[in-house]
């Protein structure tokens, strides 16, 4: 479904990721793991067109993404839930969700998708008329994920959904992501919290200094000596 081949992307002259090759199959949950600053977020930003790709190719269902502006990538069905939530603070919860279904194909089904998102996140239904900026961090994270779902995405990309959340809220968020994955949506998850991520994804890539250094199934990585010492504190 999604295939990155030797992707290099940079901010200015310094490459942030080099020669990254990863793929995500339909309905699969894949992790992109590693420490803060390893370049995981840049991979997501390269896919969605927010950062310029200087080398390699990104194929999504046969469409080359590297030259497309961000709004055209979204229109293909890739929802990117950015790091730090980034809800629209001065829009209400409902308006944030409506904007999530801005592209015409999603707009046609908006009322039905909204009901689905409200059933997954009842808190958003309760808070629908509240300004998004006045909600707690955990609630904003739920909104950011819900807003991504409004696109009816073929691929949902989540960037550090547990960042800055209390452990109980982080667990709740991961349960919701699990639920969404179980409904058949493919997921590409960027996470620093490796043990939590490995419990959710089918397989994962480990990123260090802008390169993929390891890959394997969740079980393989959980038993890998290098992963255990570097990321799991074992």
């Amino acid at each position, binding site marked *: 479904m999604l295939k990155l081949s030797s992707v290099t992307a940079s901010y200015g002259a310094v490459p942030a990721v080099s020669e990254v090759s990863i793929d995500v199959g339909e309905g699969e949950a894949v992790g992109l793991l590693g420490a803060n600053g390893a370049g995981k977020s840049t991979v997501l930003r390269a896919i*969605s*067109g*927010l950062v310029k790709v200087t080398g390699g190719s990104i194929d999504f269902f046969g469409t080359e993404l590297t030259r497309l*502006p*961000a*709004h055209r990538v*979204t*229109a293909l069905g890739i*929802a*990117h839930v*950015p790091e730090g939530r*980034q809800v*629209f*603070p*001065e*829009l209400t919860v409902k*308006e944030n969700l*409506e*904007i*999530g279904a*801005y*592209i015409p194909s*999603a*707009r046609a089904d908006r009322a039905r998708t909204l009901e689905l998102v409200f059933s997954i996140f009842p808190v958003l239904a309760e808070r629908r008329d509240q300004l998004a900026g006045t909600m707690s961090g955990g609630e904003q994270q739920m909104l950011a994920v819900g*807003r991504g779902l409004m*696109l009816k995405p073929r691929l949902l990309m989540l960037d550090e959904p547990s960042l800055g959340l209390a452990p109980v809220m982080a667990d709740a968020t991961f349960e919701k992501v699990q639920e969404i994955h179980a409904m058949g949506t493919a997921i590409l998850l960027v996470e620093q919290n490796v043990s939590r991520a490995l419990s959710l994804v089918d397989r994962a890539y480990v990123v260090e200094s802008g390169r993929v250094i390891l890959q394997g199934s969740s079980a393989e990585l959980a038993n890998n000596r290098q992963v255990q010492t570097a990321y799991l504190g074992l």
Partner: protein
Amino acid sequence: MLITLAQAVVNGLLIGGIYALVSIGVTLIFGVVKVVNFAQGEFVMLGMYVSFFLATRLGMDPIVSLVVSVPVLFVLGMLLQHYLIRRVLGLGDMPQIFLTFALSLLMMNVALMAFSANYRTIQTAYSNLALHFGGLYVPVPKLIAFAVAMGLSALLWVFLKTTDLGKAMRAAAQNYDVAMLMGINPDRVFAVAVGIAIALAGAAGSLLMAFYPAYPMVGQVFVLMAFVAVVLGTLGNVTGALIAGLMMGVAESLGIQFVGADSGMIVVFVMFLVTLMIRPNGLFGGWAR
């Protein structure tokens, strides 16, 4: 005394409606595109001349000529964004300032060459009509201008609050990158935002033509008020610009009435400075810390 005060407030609100229209345009462009349009006043001037020539050549009423000036300036605004402003986005503040400032100078001087420096006025059937409410004197052309200005502001509010394009515009103003992640095409949203802002300036011009003279530098009177109103009402805040525009009209009018005929601006700027001391980000930007 009380009636004099009430009359001053009414006079201020009536002209404040025009200030509000110009200010809303400036704050909309700043809020969405993050560019300060120094040429906003010149588009008011252009709207005035459009209505002036439609009135003198075709006998069209200046209020009716809104149906011409608003769409014409909307298209001009879209072209301005597409061919000029879009090219300087992301290059820092200086190119943007030079661009819109140069446009302002250019438009004033072309108008000077094309239309001469003469003050142009038009007479309508209602030019000298006025309503009287218990001692208050309300000139009809200004009342119509105020009502239409408030109507247009309300239409803009409905557009921003209820339409998908309006919500997309607010989203793009709040977070450009994430708006693109929602599938919003920023070029399109920006062009419409600048189009609306310039159309509002044109509308202000047409409304003014019913009671105010047109001349090439007339935009400067209104753009100064608009910049103060935009800061007073918090940069990028449309409701704030509307309220601040009306407040400035009232402050100016009170100054003229109670301080001196040429002291209106003194009261405006005292109000402005005192407000910024208490609320440095404007009326809607939180308290001073």
